[in-house]
């Protein structure tokens, strides 16, 4: 299907071949970055960064990626300071921005916002996270990081830990994994934060082997230990958040006790208290590598979508 001028709303709009092309392009970008020889292939482009919700990594890595390739960026973070605060509709904001730029990277707290924006805009919409639904570029990054670390994705066991209910990175990662052949996906969460039925059903219908567990010791089977933060901002009731807050924590001791020596810990970040800083200087730590790969991966994505050959 290819990437040129495509909206990136949902991982499932793409196939394995598309992802492999993206990953090889990201490898190319990494080489160019390393050699300090990045071609300014997007120097005639302006990219809109419309972040209605806060973001550090996604926004900054997109902005860095765009600038490395010679593009300009315009945009905002948070609704304050924009006409949305005066009551302007989301649709009008997107329509206006679409007339200014060549592509819009969008983040919004409402599920389906990116799909709606893609109905409105003529230029490609890149979903930087919509509510609990999708975060396709994070899933691309998680898969790319896995491939970089293990040289393959097929045959690996993934343990997904934490807030599997509200985390959009988890649902997008499961969508992405459905295009590969992982050995097994182990789901570890407090009962209140179990994976949503619709995602579970999707996984089972697409031949993914899921195993739900409560005991953290099962990380012993995992190659990739994917930890997520409890998504406080998506709880309808903060009392419910308090009940699960601090209910799991990945520490150096826990990893040394249970995990395979070759296992790697990924985390989409930011972390709060679910992943101890004492893991940072162990061989398990791969979340900073993951964050750093966000730039070449998003450079690859922008160049494929905007056709900067």
């Amino acid at each position, binding site marked *: 299907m290819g990437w040129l001028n495509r909206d990136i709303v949902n991982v499932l709009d793409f196939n394995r071949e598309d992802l492999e092309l993206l990953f090889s392009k990201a490898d190319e970008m990494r080489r160019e970055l390393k050699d300090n020889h990045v071609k300014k292939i997007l120097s005639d482009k302006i990219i809109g960064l419309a972040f209605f919700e806060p973001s550090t990594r996604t926004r900054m890595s997109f902005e860095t990626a765009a600038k490395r390739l010679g593009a300009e960026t315009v945009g905002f973070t948070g609704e304050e300071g924009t006409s949305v605060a005066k009551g302007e509709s989301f649709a009008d904001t997107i329509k206006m921005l679409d007339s200014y730029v060549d592509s819009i990277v969008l983040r919004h707290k*409402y*599920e*389906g916002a990116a799909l709606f924006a893609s109905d409105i805009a003529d230029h490609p919409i890149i979903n930087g996270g919509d509510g609990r*639904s999708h975060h396709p570029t994070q899933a691309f990054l998680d898969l790319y990081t896995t491939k970089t670390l293990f040289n393959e994705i097929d045959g690996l066991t993934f343990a997904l830990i934490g807030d599997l209910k509200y985390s959009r990175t988890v649902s997008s990662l499961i969508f992405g994994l459905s295009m590969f052949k992982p050995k097994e996906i182990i789901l570890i969460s407090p009962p209140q934060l179990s994976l949503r*039925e619709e995602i579970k059903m999707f996984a089972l219908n697409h031949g993914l082997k899921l195993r739900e567990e409560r005991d953290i010791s099962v990380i012993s089977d995992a190659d990739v230990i994917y930890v997520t933060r409890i998504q406080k901002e998506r709880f*309808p009731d903060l009392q419910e958040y308090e009940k699960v807050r601090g209910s799991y924590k990945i520490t150096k001791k826990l990893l040394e006790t249970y995990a395979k020596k070759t296992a790697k810990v990924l985390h989409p970040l930011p972390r709060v208290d679910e992943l101890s800083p004492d893991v940072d200087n162990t061989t398990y730590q791969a979340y900073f590598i993951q964050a750093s790969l966000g730039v070449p991966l998003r450079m690859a994505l922008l160049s494929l979508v905007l056709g900067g050959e």
Partner: protein
Amino acid sequence: MNIKKDDKLLVSKIENGTVIDHITSGRALVVLKILNIKGNEGYRIAIVMNVPSTTMGKKDIVKLEDYYPNSEDLEKISLIAPSATINIIKNYEIVKKYKVEIPSKIKGTLKCNNPTCITRKSNEPITSSFTLLSRDKIRIQCDYCGSILTEEDIIKELVGESQ
């Protein structure tokens, strides 16, 4: 199961209007709510509930004199009573008879039950859109947020309460 003669005599025929037959038993009042009929509009209405049916075991029937549901009403009825048949009556005779049918895409008929679905955001030019996942045990999926609505969820969205 035999239908007793006395049961048949309970409700007289209507001259002109609509008979909605084969409604899932216990759902006749939901059908009236969907049609927004409160009873004070002046239509002659007969409601028959939990009567024996050869195909369904038990069923409900609603007879509405001088009332003809529109296509949106029928789409809603199909979601909560998928076996319902519509009989259009003229001069005591059935002039048209058809089954309701759940469309594979349901647009604008009901709201998504997820409060943070973009289709629920006020002041946006957006129409709800669902894809039918299963007809037997009705399940529909919001095209925007991915939420799956069961029959119970659909009733709650259509009439504001569970049945």
